[in-house]
């Protein structure tokens, strides 16, 4: 428990009569990929929303690096090192790919109350941005308008922005969504490399990716944690297989 960078304790969130999160407790340790799986509507995206501060939990708390951040606004959590990618791509469509990532760099480069110098000429912003783009394989698309990129490239750009944001923890919301087999494989390889540097909380449906990357898995069903533990343990868990994996295997044959 002591080397857990992110601790979630008893998180509960209701929307009217619907319970999106019920007493969710889990943690994220240094050097691991902790995957969160579960059927649609299990409350996975709501969980990220609460972690990032876009949603206020009704009960429970969130501790990051020893500090209680439950009441902290979104931008402060981001500056502390919580970086997220969005499930439904949320980019700056009228900016170029490079501009998008440069903004993520800019957020961590001190205050932005600078009114005179052309920010697009600042190498302290542009170089790290180019590096992040190159790392995800989009280096050659740096000057393309985000609106003109393909869906797969959008997912990569999302990822590049999260990387450029000086993260200490990555919260990835379905990074594989909509990617073809080649792109998925590339993403998995990237994440495997990355987990040596950063702990990753990974929300995913793509079970191949989950089994290839995860050290631990937590299963959410209707907002509740029904199982949590090491990869092999979860794989073998009867209840989980029936509730969730069973369906998945039936689908994949």
């Amino acid at each position, binding site marked *: 428990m002591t080397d857990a960078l992110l601790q979630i304790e008893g998180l509960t969130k209701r929307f009217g009569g619907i319970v999106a999160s019920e007493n969710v407790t889990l943690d994220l340790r240094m050097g691991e990929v902790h995957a969160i799986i579960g059927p649609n509507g299990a409350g996975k995206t709501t969980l990220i929303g609460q972690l990032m501060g*876009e949603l206020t939990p009704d009960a429970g708390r969130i501790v990051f690096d020893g500090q209680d951040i439950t009441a902290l606004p979104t931008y402060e959590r981001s500056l502390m090192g919580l970086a997220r990618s969005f499930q439904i791509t949320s980019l700056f469509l*009228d900016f170029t790919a490079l501009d998008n990532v440069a903004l993520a760099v*800019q957020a961590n480069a001190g205050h*932005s109350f600078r009114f005179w*110098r052309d920010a697009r000429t600042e190498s302290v912003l542009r170089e790290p941005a180019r590096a992040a783009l190159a790392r995800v394989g989009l280096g050659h698309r740096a000057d393309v308008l985000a609106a003109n990129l393909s869906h797969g490239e959008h997912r990569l750009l999302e990822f590049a922005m999260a990387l450029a944001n000086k993260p200490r923890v990555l919260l990835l919301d379905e990074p594989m969504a909509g990617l073809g087999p080649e792109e998925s494989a590339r993403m998995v390889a990237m994440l495997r490399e990355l987990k040596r540097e950063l702990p990753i909380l990974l929300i995913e449906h793509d079970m191949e990716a989950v089994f290839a990357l995860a050290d631990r898995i937590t299963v959410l069903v209707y907002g509740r944690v029904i199982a949590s533990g090491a990869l092999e343990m979860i794989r073998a868990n009867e209840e989980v297989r029936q509730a969730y994996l069973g369906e998945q295997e039936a689908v994949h044959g």
Partner: protein
Amino acid sequence: MSDRLTARNVFVAALLALLVLLPAYTHATGNTFIMTLFTRIVILAIAAVSLNLIMGFGGMVSFGHAAYLGIGGYVVGILAKEGINAGLVQWPLALLLSGLFALGVGALSLRTRGVYFIMITLAFAQVVYYVANGLDRYGGDDGLTIQARSQFGGLIDLSNRTLFYYLCLALLLATVYLVWRMVNSRFGLVIQGARSNDRRMRAIGFPTFRYKLVCFVIAGVLCGLSGVLLANHTNFISPALMHWTRSGDLIVMAVLGGMGTVFGPVIGAIALLVLEETLPHLIGLGSYLVTGKEVAAAKEYWQLILGPMLLLVVLFARGGIDGILARLRRD
């Protein structure tokens, strides 16, 4: 060099040349009316550029921007009435009050977005309008005559029309340059990012509210300057200047000229006010050619065309005149 010679750049350069050389034309022909018209155009262009900073670049559509014209103008007018004519007292105070008002309005309004933001900025401007209407000592709804223009103690004599015109033009060019530098700076990118995707900006670590507020205040101060100049130009100020339909005029200038660039609103201001002056004559001329007699009424109804024209611009030429010119480049 050749890709700088685009249709748009040539057009802008021509406009600038026209603006700079205008007084020469006036002196040659003795037509002072055109200098009066263009002084007004230049002053309102400053207001339109300031509005576009928050609207085109920041996505904050304020239907209460004309309030700052009024605040700037009334500070000059009220101080003048009380015997304080020194420009060095009037102008900084006008800008300060414009900024403070923008700070207050922004702090409350920027918590909303979309049509709510539009309505709340409109509401605040209406409050100022009503307050001005109630200021009996300063003319109430009849308005206030300003006997003398701001005095700068021999440094510059504002009652010299040509000098005043060049001052306004210089201030316009300075404003355009300032705003241009701002929108490309770190600050400007934050503002544009917030317009593009506010949620993402916060998720990557920008406290967007404070940046938008600062932008809002800057725009208010610049528009206050426009109000100061306008009051000096017309030697008169009235609450009608702050009515929300006047804010609508500023929005029209920005949209017509092109919201995507800093210079667009200047084009829009010129286009709108020149049309306002010439279209009636053109219609009158047209009706004369068609019917053989000049239909006097036709000259008054040019606004009949303005309304649908605005709708058509919104539907088909969203980038305004500037956008149309920019597209010519690719053909």
